[in-house]
């Protein structure tokens, strides 16, 4: 009986303990985040972002969203949503309160299928009114001010069709407009709407088959070949420092570019970088192509790109190193149907507009992502020593994160701890950096061991001379003896 009550008491105690210990909060996600390692394998990673909520407008006074095309998040974290279905731009905050509506029901301020929005620091709202072939400008209160129609210039090619989609306005008031179907570059418009020139044009990618076909084709066949145009832009973004980021469709690499003031790409400095997935599914015997449709860059230079082919978001640091991939297609929360735009708010939330589901999904960063961001920002700024500890914490959470090994290797190299740096570079298979670290390490070893090395060499030399002398001596004695014998 005593044993029985004791057992009950133990069970009760165990149950009480179980209730007292908080159950680990595991957020179940509809997708699995991953990252490409240095060898190009996709390695599962802790999810960098998780679904928080979605904004569909059904509980807002402005009514449900319809066809959200573009997102713009202002410095005060308020969100501007272009609704091409409702022909308006909605200004809301993260608490789903409506702050303003741009786009009149009729008159000059009425929009028709708008596709892009940009808000200046003083609150002027520029909307590309795509089907009306103009850019409409509203003031902060929603009052229509003026519009900029089809630009005219002898520089514009014949048969030019103006179809403005995404746009930004720089600090001087110049507008940079993506015109759909225009491959000469971004349209740069002066503050009064006159054409100032093309900006940052893409180049026709090199293609062997095209050259071969051109060589073999006859004069008439050549005329019938479709002329190859440079790939066109899909979106444009201006970061806090005023750099312009563009995204390009129909290319395999350098889909995201950071353009300098003269239109030169400063992001992909070492030639070429593939954004999005490295391996895509094959349909109709052809590999699908990544289609980066929008990009957002936060104040620390973390780039978030949205791929419409896989429905995934890809994050990169300022140098273009991949940090994470997450998201995908599906019906669950956190997955998309037709994602059109991505924007990051100053507090680190990621907003993604979905045209088909008529809603905006909001994602929050996990502690893992915050850690990687922190480490990566310190690393990019050249603060290798400070980045050391966060990178190690990243590895404690995810020991398959190659960028952490590489960055720690770099930090160790900077601290002249070459031997340790070598082992980190070896883990990620980076032969060039390994070799550099090894070269320095070798110098140190040779410098330290020079004395003993030389004394060993000296000893060997003396020994070899001694042996040679002895051998010569012995053979001479042998000969002498033989000589005696023959005598």
């Amino acid at each position, binding site marked *: 009986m005593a044993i029985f009550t004791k057992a009950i008491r133990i069970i009760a105690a165990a149950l009480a303990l179980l209730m007292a210990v908080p159950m680990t909060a595991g957020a179940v996600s509809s997708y699995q985040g991953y990252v490409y390692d240095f060898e190009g394998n996709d390695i599962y990673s802790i999810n960098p972002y998780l679904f928080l909520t979605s904004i569909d407008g059904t509980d807002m006074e402005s009514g449900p969203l319809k066809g959200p095309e573009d997102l713009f998040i202002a410095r005060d974290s308020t969100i501007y949503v272009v609704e091409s279905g409702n022909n308006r731009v909605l200004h809301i905050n993260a608490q789903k309160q409506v702050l303003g509506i741009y786009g009149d029901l009729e008159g000059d301020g009425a929009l028709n299928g708008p596709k892009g929005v940009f808000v200046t620091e003083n609150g002027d709202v520029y909307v590309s009114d795509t089907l009306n072939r103009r850019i409409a400008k509203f003031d902060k209160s929603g009052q229509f001010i003026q519009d900029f129609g089809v630009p005219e210039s002898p520089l514009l090619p014949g048969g030019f069709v103006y179809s403005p989609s995404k746009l930004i306005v720089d600090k001087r008031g110049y507008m940079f407009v993506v015109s759909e179907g225009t491959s000469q570059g971004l349209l740069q418009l002066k503050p009064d709407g006159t054409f100032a020139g093309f900006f940052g044009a893409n180049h026709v990618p090199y293609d062997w088959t095209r050259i071969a076909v051109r060589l073999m084709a006859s004069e008439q066949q050549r005329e019938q070949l479709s002329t190859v145009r440079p790939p066109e832009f899909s979106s444009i973004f201006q970061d806090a420092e005023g750099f312009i980021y563009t995204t390009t469709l129909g290319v395999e690499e350098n889909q995201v570019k950071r353009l300098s003031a003269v239109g030169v790409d400063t992001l992909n400095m070492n030639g070429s970088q593939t954004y999005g997935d490295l391996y895509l599914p094959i349909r109709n015997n052809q590999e699908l192509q990544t289609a980066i449709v929008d990009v957002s860059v936060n104040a620390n230079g973390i780039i978030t790109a949205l791929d419409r082919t896989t429905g995934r978001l890809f994050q990169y640091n300022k140098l273009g190193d991949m940090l994470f991939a997450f998201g995908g297609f599906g019906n669950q929360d956190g997955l998309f149907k037709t994602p059109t735009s991505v924007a990051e708010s100053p507090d680190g939330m990621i907003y993604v507009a979905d045209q088909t589901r008529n809603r905006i999904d909001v994602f929050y960063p996990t502690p893992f992502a915050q850690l990687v961001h922190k480490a990566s920002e310190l690393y990019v700024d050249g603060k290798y020593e400070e980045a050391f500890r966060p990178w190690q914490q990243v590895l404690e959470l995810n020991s398959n994160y190659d960028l952490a090994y590489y960055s720690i290797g770099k930090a160790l190299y900077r601290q002249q701890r070459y031997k340790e740096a070598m082992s980190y570079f*070896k883990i990620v*298979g980076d*032969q*060039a950096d*390994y*070799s550099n670290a*090894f*070269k320095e390490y*070798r110098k140190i070893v040779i410098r330290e061991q020079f004395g003993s090395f030389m004394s060993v060499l000296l000893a060997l030399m003396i020994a070899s001379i001694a042996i040679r002398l002895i051998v010569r001596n012995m053979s001479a004695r042998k000969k002498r003896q033989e000589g005696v014998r023959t005598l």
Partner: protein
Amino acid sequence: MSMFRRMRKVLFHPLQFMEDIRDEGGAYVRDIAVILLLTVCTRIFFLMASGFSFVNVKPYSVSVFLEVLWIVLPWFTWSVSNWAVSTINDGEGKFKDIAVVSAYVYLPYIVITVPLTLVSNVLSQGEGSIYGFINSFMLVWMLFLLLLQVKVLHDFAWGKTIWTTLVSVFGMLLVWFVAVMIVGLVNQSAYFVTNIIKEIGFRS
């Protein structure tokens, strides 16, 4: 003459070595086994013990079977192809001699790769040109031995030697092509027959 002395002769007096084999015989089939085994060991040593600055191979990705295949197969097909081609072209070489001497062509690879692998552990990529130079020197040496083998064993002039070598290489590729084709066809027909048997099984 011990095998060690034969090897030394191949390395330092190849012409004399091959002439002796042609005129007086003395090609030992057991040499083939030893040389090929040493070559495979050297290859594995190279993959496993090279400095990371030069060779980045993960141990799990090394297949001993494949390494053996890529050493034995070229030697064997070369011997067959060269024997066949040179016999048509009035070559004097016997198959045994060709097989043995062809195996000896791997000798510079063994002699150079082993020290080079050790040295690669103290070189950085900046000194990669030395590494590359020694590697290409080795290849030239092997090519020289190969050409010399064709020339001496069959008693050809240089022009004919080079022509025969090129045709032999073509013959090698042809052998591989036919082998792959035969494997494919046998595979397909085996699949066909087993499927028919299966189907009969289902219907009866």
